[in-house]
């Protein structure tokens, strides 16, 4: 009996050890995948600028449209967003330098320094969505599995934040095989509440990097039951006319933002 117990214990330990080794290997693979994901969408050597068309549809059907231009410098974690439409918000600007965000109101001609106001123009878009990707720096994978997402064969990673500067402490991402592009993201609160879902079915290649062509963001916290069905606030973002033209340092400054706001 003792021998059987001993054998079973040894088998158990061996299984445990192999599980731990597998988990470590899996950790390494997940970290490597996150690094590849970041690399695919990060413009490390150039500035990136483009037009963003953001269409928000409230539950029930009310629509609002925002058109903006973004200037992005991933290597310095900087971006500048200038609103073109609607007319009433024209000239509003968002400047992010490092972890700090300035908002410029052309009516009051004043800046607000914050990292709390994360919604962009009251839509489901967060200001952090304009950042370059840094999954490998901000998150660690705690679980992974394979899953088919429509026509995409994906690796699904459950992520937990490494720091508190991110918008969401937990995320689940679907990364398509072969191109290492994030196709779907679910954002969770610390308690596990699903807060937002983002789908990126189509990318566009610009230079040697990728940018979403269109993405759909669903705010899982904003919903109404209409005709027996639950409708969520839904924001569609279309990115067009991408440019890799180099920009002077002064573009990513408050003074520039104030100068060009009309």
């Amino acid at each position, binding site marked *: 009996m003792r021998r059987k*117990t001993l054998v*079973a*214990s040894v088998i*158990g*330990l061996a*299984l445990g050890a192999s*599980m731990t080794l597998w*988990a470590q290997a899996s950790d390494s693979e997940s970290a490597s995948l996150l690094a590849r994901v970041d690399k695919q969408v990060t413009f490390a050597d150039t500035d990136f*600028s483009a037009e963003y068309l953001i269409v928000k549809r409230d539950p029930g059907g009310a629509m609002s449209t925002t058109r903006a231009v973004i200037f992005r410098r991933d290597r310095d974690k900087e971006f500048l967003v*200038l609103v*073109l439409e609607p*007319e009433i918000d024209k000239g509003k600007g968002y400047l992010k*330098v*490092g972890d*700090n965000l300035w908002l410029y109101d052309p009516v009051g*001609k004043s800046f607000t320094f914050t*990292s*709390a*106001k994360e*919604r962009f123009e009251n839509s489901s878009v967060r200001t952090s969505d304009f950042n370059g990707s840094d999954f490998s720096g901000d998150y660690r994978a705690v*679980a992974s599995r394979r899953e088919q*997402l*429509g026509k*995409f064969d994906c690796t*699904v990673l*459950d992520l*937990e934040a490494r720091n508190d500067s991110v918008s969401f402490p*937990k995320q*689940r991402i679907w990364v398509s095989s072969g191109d290492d592009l994030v196709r*779907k993201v*679910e954002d*969770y609160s610390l308690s*596990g509440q699903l807060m937002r*879902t*983002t*789908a990126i079915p*189509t*990318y*566009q*290649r*610009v*230079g040697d990097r*990728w*940018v979403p*062509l269109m993405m759909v963001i*669903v705010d*899982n916290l904003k919903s109404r039951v209409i005709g027996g069905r*639950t409708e*969520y606030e839904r924001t569609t973002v279309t990115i067009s*006319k991408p*440019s*890799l*033209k180099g*920009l002077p340092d*002064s*573009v990513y400054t*408050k*003074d520039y933002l104030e100068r*060009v706001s*009309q």
Partner: protein
Amino acid sequence: MRGGPFRRAPLVLVAAVLALGSMRGLSAQDASTSSDPGSGVDNLFSNPEGDTTTADSGADYRATFESAPKTKVSGDLSGSFGLGLGWTQWPELADPRAGLATSVGFLGTTTASFDARPDSSFHAAGTFSLTYDPRTSGSYVWDFSSIAISELYGDYNLNDSLYLRFGQFGMSWGQGRLFMPGNLVSDASSGFALRLSLPTLLSGLSFVALAQPSFFATASSPSWREIAVGATTDMVFGGLRVGFGGRYQLYSGARGLLSLKTTLFGTDLFADGVASSNGADPTFQTMAGFFREWGDFKVYGEWYWNGSSSMASSWATSTDSLLSSATAGGTPGQSLGLVFALQHILGTGVSGGLQWLHAFVDGSGIVVAGLSDSPWNHVTIKVAVPATYGASEGYYVQNGVDSKKRRIACLVVVTIESGF
């Protein structure tokens, strides 16, 4: 049954080790039980448009803002009709007509603006306004001799490394929205100003010079020594923004500003400290506050301490709060302000708010509840209920939003406005 617990021990051990090995995965699974819980986005992946290649457009979007359109002219015309009903003393049930005061008013305003950007190095802009208020003018025609220049300035850009702005324009320093001791340049738009900025130095370094008739002992022979000069800059250390500012004028003396701001647990926290000296002992003012928003709901609060003994200091100016234009910040000692604002009430286009201001020096205060809606194109309706408390000579009783100084009132303003 003998040895039963020992018989199960290996299985327990195996299960425990397996559980340990997979614990992290399980904890992550807790995050969600469904990959598409009603979001309805998964159908986007069943037959998506294929990934594509887009040529680098090479576009320089700076031109969109720096030099186009070359010249733009715009403006608006608005008319506001107001009705007010309230009591100059707290209403008495025995005699509800005691202190009853009504008011009716009309205000017409037109503004015209131009914005010219002949090239990326020069920009000029101006806004002119004309107000028609029969209550104050006693006239029922527009008086075009009273056209006011709201702003008129030019910008010059030297190789993206130095920006110069000159003319009449507003500036804002400090962080207060209810109490603004830190805005050392609040009077900039009242005269000629010049600002020279070095955008890439620190987080921006600016020098300013202000000239106004009130600065000069003899207006007909002004001296350059009487011009006010100042500078401001920002620095960021991690998540802490530190701002410095200073201003000096020959007669009003020197003022220094230290601003701090950070964000903790999603809440903005900020503070301004101002020291001023005019040859005598220095005086101090401090403002500290917070801001937090949850979607459409916002909460904003400020505490203000004014170390000077005078009732109204020249640089503690009127508020630009979410609700109204209640005068604030002119009292010595401590004051408090709190604002709650809610947009899209019950899913409608109606916005509402509640503002409370209190001065400890005389125990006076004001509470204003308000609603705003735009039910039709170009039409905005605002309803406000201001109520003041404290002695009749109290600061907020005398300086509330209601020019009739009613203790409690209901004000309705309908504005029709259109731009061109």
